[in-house]
């Protein structure tokens, strides 16, 4: 059989192979001496190219991604739930001692036995000791002198030549008010005048600009703040009216006025008081101990002890719709001229001071007509005298020579301890008031239309060791 030579050549592995194939082809035609199908043949080598190491193109694709823009939105939330609650202060309960726990009787007795001797010894030593005589400790910084803290004035009032006729501190001690008027006008006056108030605790206090100003139709002669309401102030006018203002309402401060009726004082009101007298009253002071007791200073120069509970009806010149009573109970020995100011001691129920045009201040006891002491403080008039609210033996006086004088009866009973000049040209100081809350402050108003707030030295603001006893001693020097 003839095997056809396969034309199959996978690679030129060798020419021998090709020859062999060629040979085999020819061999079939020539016919070697072998039988046909069992011939040895050598085929070429087949080779397969590798596909593994071939250079592959790096296939890449570009992709990108982008975060979407952040969406924001604003929303507000309000909690709507609310709950009502009430608060009520309760009156303080009187303090009661807690129930006492069981304790051992014999133990207590033993303890007392043990300590009694020691305690008794110390008590006796203390009673005789002079170890602490004259030893004083100062906890607060000592102010050595009296100096002027503020000089307050109202230029329009000063421009009219008005005097400060009354000063008053309010119940919290932070506002000082003054009344402008004239004290030397003898006739009726239709002068428009002012009542001004300065809040000293306010920042940016401007001394020429009061925090509140009220215009009044006629000269204001006297002024007093309400004892508990910090913004209410009452003033008496030259026309005889009494007005009450609320200084916290700038648009319409006027609360109340007495109006001009037949009953009103047709004589000038010189100090807000709750009573009238047939004598010309120039000054009133209520006792701090007995609210129905008051002392009147009169034009005749004699102080009168009066009581609101007097029953006797008054004899008046003109009929009046309000029944008047005659309150006078006792007449004291007179000054040499009208009394312009009286003041009852806040520490002793029987003592009061009076000051008048004779330049003297008299210290009276309610129990006798003659004054206990008479002090000449000025050669001109004395316009105001006030006891200190903290020191039982101290009082202040305003003189016609422009001085504010402070007396300490413990140091000297003849001359003032401190005398400060309020006005340079010796025009009189008409009124003064201590500040009961801030006890180092004293306000004084003068004829130049200024109110000066004085800061007192520490000796006037702290009570000494035995002042109340000394005051009692003074009061008991009543001639028997």
């Amino acid at each position, binding site marked *: 059989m003839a095997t056809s030579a396969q034309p199959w050549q996978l690679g030129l592995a060798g020419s021998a192979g090709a020859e062999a194939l060629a040979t085999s082809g020819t061999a079939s035609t020539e016919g070697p001496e072998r039988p046909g199908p069992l011939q040895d043949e050598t085929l070429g080598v087949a080779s397969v190219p590798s596909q593994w190491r071939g250079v592959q193109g790096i296939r890449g694709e570009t992709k990108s991604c982008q975060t979407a823009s952040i969406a924001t939105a604003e929303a507000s939330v309000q909690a709507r739930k609310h709950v009502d609650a009430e608060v009520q202060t309760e009156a303080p309960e*009187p*303090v*009661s*001692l*807690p129930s*006492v*726990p*069981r*304790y*051992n*009787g*014999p*133990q*207590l*007795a033993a*303890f*007392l*036995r*043990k*300590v*009694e001797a*020691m*305690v*008794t010894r*110390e*008590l*006796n030593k*203390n*009673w*005789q*000791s002079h170890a*602490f*005589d004259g030893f004083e400790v100062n906890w607060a910084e000592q102010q050595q002198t009296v100096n002027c803290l503020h000089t307050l004035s109202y230029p329009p009032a000063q421009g009219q030549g008005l005097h400060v006729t009354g000063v008053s501190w309010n119940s919290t001690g932070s506002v000082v008010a003054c009344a402008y008027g004239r004290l030397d006008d003898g006739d009726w006056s239709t002068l428009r005048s002012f009542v001004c108030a300065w809040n000293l605790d306010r920042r940016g206090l401007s001394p020429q600009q009061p925090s509140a100003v009220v215009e009044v139709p006629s000269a204001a002669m006297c002024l007093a703040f309400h004892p508990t309401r910090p913004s209410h102030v009452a003033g008496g006018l030259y026309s005889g009216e009494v007005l009450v203002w609320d200084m916290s309402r700038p648009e319409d401060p006027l609360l109340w006025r007495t109006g001009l009726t037949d009953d009103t004082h047709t004589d000038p009101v010189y100090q807000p008081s709750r009573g009238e007298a047939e004598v010309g009253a120039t000054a009133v002071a209520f006792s701090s101990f007995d609210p129905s007791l008051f002392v009147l200073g009169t034009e005749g120069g004699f102080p009168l002890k009066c009581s609101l509970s007097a029953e006797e009806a008054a004899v008046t010149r003109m009929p009046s719709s309000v029944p008047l009573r005659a309150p006078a109970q006792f007449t004291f020995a007179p000054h040499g001229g009208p009394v312009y100011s009286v003041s009852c001691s806040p520490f002793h129920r029987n003592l009061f001071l009076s000051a008048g045009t004779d330049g003297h201040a008299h210290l009276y006891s309610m129990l006798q007509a003659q004054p206990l002491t008479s002090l000449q403080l000025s050669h001109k008039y004395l316009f105001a005298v006030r006891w200190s609210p903290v020191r039982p033996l101290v009082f202040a006086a305003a003189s016609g020579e422009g001085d504010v004088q402070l007396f300490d009866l413990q140091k000297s009973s003849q001359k003032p301890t401190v005398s400060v000049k309020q006005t340079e040209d010796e025009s009189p100081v008409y009124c003064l008031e201590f500040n009961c809350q801030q006890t180092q402050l004293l306000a004084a108003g003068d004829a130049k239309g200024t109110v000066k707030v004085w800061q007192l030295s520490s000796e006037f603001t702290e009570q000494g*060791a*035995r002042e109340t006893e000394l005051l009692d001693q003074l009061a008991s020097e009543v001639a028997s």
Partner: protein
Amino acid sequence: MKTLVNFFPDLFQAEVEETLKRIQSHKGVIGTMVVNAEGIPIRTTLDNSTTVQYAGLLHQLTMKAKSTVRDIDPQNDLTFLRIRSKKHEIMVAPDKEYLLIVIQNPCE
């Protein structure tokens, strides 16, 4: 003399009362009180609110004084406490169980 609890046999009660009366009658004594270890007053000659105030405050002060003395020297201990003020002197005699407080206005 205000007695707060009538509690123990008369024998000791009489002695306690007498001792306190003796102390109270000394010259210048304004008030006397006995306070227990918790600061609760047991006997007093002053009014309720003043007593409660003195008892609470002085108990605390005495404890502080005692710890001060012990801290400085652990072998030492507080025997007596005196506070002198402008107006008067307060004396405290301390003990494990009780405090005796006496207020005196000494002669100046």
